[in-house]
């Protein structure tokens, strides 16, 4: 459903991403592993339209080209991003944050179904609807950010280091929730650093080094591979 090829991004002279190719199937969970500065955020921002890819890039979502669309139209096309730093509407309530997730006419019609789906994955949020989002803990904010992205009724959910800044317990809780999201038919593509857990819940994985894809495979194979264990899993 997502087909990426030839994706390069430069910041001025600095080539941050070079010729990346990747695919995600319907209902699949895919993780891209890379060290700090490898280009993970750049990759995911390019997909979401927050940075501009170099000419020649192809980003196809369900057959539709995204590479030239501005960010807000990419959301309309069915791709939702939970960004680094979350970018919640911190002075608005959780209810307002979630309701803004269903801002587009396409998603507004589904808003109450989407909201039930969010509560099914994060039951805690039901009691927190009137809380100001910025006053929540990091883990709770991450749930709101994912919930907001789910409200856009996406075909593909992108997560930029979802476990960053979360306690081990919350990380476990978060990674348990992702397969439930994928089970509803929404594909998940995330980028992570040293996460054993992210590989354990993923179907497939890619390795990103210095802006290039240097390996890929089934998540179970990557978990076994000695090179991966050394480089990414801190063993």
């Amino acid at each position, binding site marked *: 459903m997502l087909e990426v090829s030839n994706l390069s991004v430069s910041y001025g002279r600095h080539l941050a991403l070079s010729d990346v190719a990747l695919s995600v199937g319907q209902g699949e969970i895919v993780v891209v592993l890379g060290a700090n500065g490898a280009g993970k955020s750049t990759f995911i921002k390019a997909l*979401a339209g927050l940075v501009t890819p170099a000419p020649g890039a192809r980003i196809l979502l369900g057959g539709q080209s995204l590479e030239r669309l501005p960010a*807000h139209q990419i959301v309309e096309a069915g791709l939702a991003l939970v960004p680094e730093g979350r970018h919640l*509407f911190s002075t608005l309530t959780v209810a307002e944050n979630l309701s803004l997730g269903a801002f587009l006419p396409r998603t507004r019609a589904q808003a109450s179904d989407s909201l039930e789906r969010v509560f099914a994955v994060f039951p805690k949020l039901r009691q927190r609807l009137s809380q100001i989002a910025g006053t929540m803990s990091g883990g709770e904010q991450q749930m709101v950010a994912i919930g907001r992205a789910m409200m856009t009724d996406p075909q593909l959910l992108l997560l930029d280091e979802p476990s960053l800044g979360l306690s081990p317990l919350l990380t476990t809780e978060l990674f348990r929730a992702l397969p439930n999201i994928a089970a509803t038919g929404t594909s998940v593509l995330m980028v992570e650093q040293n996460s054993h857990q992210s590989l354990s819940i993923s179907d497939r994985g890619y390795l990103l080094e210095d802006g290039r894809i240097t390996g890929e495979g089934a998540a179970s194979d990557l978990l076994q591979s000695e090179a991966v264990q050394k480089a990414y899993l801190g063993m």
Partner: protein
Amino acid sequence: MFMNALLSGLTLGGVYALVAMGLTIQYGVSRSLNLGYGEFLIGAAFAVYVLFGALGISPYLLALVVVPVAFGLSWLIYRVMLTPILRRARTPVALEIDSLLLTFGLLFAMMGIMLLVFGSNYTSYTYLSVPVRILDATVALNRLVSFGAAVVVGALAFAFLMRTRTGMALRAVAVDPVGAQLVGIDVKWAAGLAFAIGGAIAALGGVLISTYMTFTAEMGVVFTMKALIVVIMAGVGHVVGALLVGLALGLIEAFVAAYLDPGLTVAVIYAVFLLALIVRPVGIFGRAVR
């Protein structure tokens, strides 16, 4: 004297509150501080002065023409002048500096045109200048009607921001433009709309104030400064705060003029502003919006 000062303070403060609300919407959503904001206010005052003189139509009815024109003009200025620098600016700070320079130019262009057409004389006209007795004080009817109009439009604008989807989208952009894009909001569209709404509100303020105050072609900057003081004191993007502080500003002005000296109003306002900045740098309603 107390009642007189209270009434003139409330009526003036009501319009200040409205004008500050317009600037906080404009600045809060588009992140472009419009230094030519007060020129829209004065421009509308002159437009009404001319049209009222020529046609004899009530200034309040003329607002139905002047305000939409200001809306369209502000939108156009945003699209033509400010969107190109949006593309150019690499950081939010660069964007703010670029837009300051541009709107500084806008200020002088608009002021220059008005000076050319109207000269630098004090201008005024008489409309509904009938004294009304309230308790033991008198206040002109034009002040009361203007105050009423400011309250109604302020309430409508507030309801629009809080209750409609479009209003919520504008608030979302003010809080986090990146987050707004990620839920499908076209941030450029939202900024243009907010800029237009702000310009329209400034123009309405100009129409209301012109019914009871003398004005000159060079006075726009005074209103920009006052509105900006209110916006900063309240916290950028904080609409309720701007309304309250704007009202307070009108009251302070009236009481200083009545009990101290009319020449001291500006000095006292700046002193209050300075104090507020020292005590609460993020604004009285204290949340850093950015």
